[in-house]
């Protein structure tokens, strides 16, 4: 084996090692990082604490857009009302309370708890 052959083998091993390392990194990225990389990023809002309660912010924004024009209150006022209503309770508890009290609203004709519809409006407004 010539010295040139040794050098060629060394480069080949190095290339394999680099590719293997890249593969591991790619796998790690796929499992941990990629969803975050491609997920929609939202600009921070003063009511992110409320929007975090939504099961699916994209759907909420789409539904909220259907009623946004009918909602005149400011986002600050809506979020203040919601925070007072929600307190430390879970979203589902508050929604059930809405149903029990008949506190309903319509979005695109769907009969929903008012709290959910207001959250959807905030989601739509946060989408700009």
């Amino acid at each position, binding site marked *: 084996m010539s010295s040139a052959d040794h050098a060629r083998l060394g480069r080949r091993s190095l290339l394999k090692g680099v590719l293997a390392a890249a593969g591991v990194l790619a796998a790690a990225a796929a499992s941990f990082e990629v969803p975050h990389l491609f997920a929609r990023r939202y600009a921070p809002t003063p009511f992110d604490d409320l929007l975090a309660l939504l099961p*699916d912010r994209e759907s909420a924004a789409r*539904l909220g857009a259907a009623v946004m024009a009918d909602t005149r209150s400011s986002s600050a006022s809506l979020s203040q009302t919601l925070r007072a209503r929600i307190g430390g309770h879970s979203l589902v508890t508050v929604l059930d309370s809405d*149903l*029990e009290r*008949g506190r309903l609203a*319509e979005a*695109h*004709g*769907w*009969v929903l708890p008012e709290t959910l519809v207001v959250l959807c409006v905030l989601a739509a407004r946060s989408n700009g």
Partner: protein
Amino acid sequence: MPPASTIETDLAIIGGGPAGISLALALAGKPIRLLMLESGGLGFDAATQKLYAGTETGVHYIPLDATRLRYLGGCSNHWGGWCRPLDPVDFEAREWFPHSGWPFRRSEIEPYYARAQSLVEAGPFIYDDSAKWTKALGAPLRLGPGGLYTTWFQFSKQRGSVLPTHFGERYADDLKRIANLDVLLHANVTGLKLSPDAKRLDRLDVATLSGNRFVVKPRVAVIATGGIETPRLLLASNDVMSKGVGNAHDLVGRFFADHPIPPQTATLVVFDGRIPPYYQLTQTANGANFRAAFAPHDEFRRMRGVPGALITVEGEVQVDSTSQAALAEAAGAFGADASQMRAFTLGCGMELAPDPDRRLTLSGEKDALGTPRLKLAMRISDDDFAHYRNTLKELGRQLLESRAGMLRILHTSRAEWLAGLDWGNHHMGTTRMHNDPRHGVVDANSRVHGVGNLYIAGSAVFPTYGASNPTLNLIALSLRLADHLKGQFR
């Protein structure tokens, strides 16, 4: 009939529809000579049907010669066979529902429902006990506590090619066999002639399209010509009482009602996609045909001021992308699995509030027999739609509360409600029943106020209408009238 002849009889029944035929059957074999006068024959005839033509103004309504049928069997010749008793609350006077209330409770006609059920051939009287017969098909849709519940229709049965019971075809032979009954077909009553003091009916003027005219002198007469023709006959008979028979207080023809059927009022989503078949299709069990619907509880109606309503489940539909977003959000928020969801359009049956200005009056035109034609001023108030919306909203609330599904209301504006509006062909209210002659044309026994021997049978006397189809109820009422008349002839 020889021209210009006079027939004397004990009881003249004017009209051979479900009310008149039920009355005749109930009085069979009694010591009362009966004469039924039916305008039509045994089948449809265009010239006879044309006698019904009139004009309609206001909210779209079916032409007056298309919304009913003028031959033996009357409107049962085109009914759908849907049967359901009125609810107890339908009979109550309610402050929030102007002009509402019957002069008696439902218990007054309850004893007659079983026989009425038998006449419409709808099997055993089961209705809201139907769930026990349909258990194998699955439990009714789960609803949270609240205003609506699953109620049940029964159906007049299919017998061979007849679907459902057409009273003329079904009972023509039975009528022939009644020894104390004569039936005159093609006999149009054109006038009610009162005694000079207007306190009694003296005679009936009768005419045929072939040109014959004769007179019937009954001891008692019952008008059973439906909610449109009955006021026409009363209003047109104005030679003694200038405003028409029974119309001293200008009530005849007012308060006309029907059940509006706006198409596709709402969409129901069932999260798990499982809905028993009896909501969409008629099922047969225990000798009866059933179908489920949603209706407001009486208590809910009293508390929330809600008129009668019935909500049926119709065809499966797809939902748009915004609706999918609503589903994702609601199901997600409530922790429901909507991966198998199915959506259905909802059918509407709604009660109109009594309205004195929804009204039939005589027009200047006359039919082939010289009887003035009718003009209908049709109206629906925004409140009627708003009430029905509130009922739908409550159903939507209950569906979410039970995590069974959700509901979308499709109409908001008046124009949306009126677009493609159809009607039930349920003509009611134009000779309403009330103990006080200032508020009703007939008294609690269906006797025309002020005219001792003239009665009205059928849904024309319904002072409040409910959302149920009228046929079963008007037959029960006719059977009650038959019992009253038996007493009159003793």
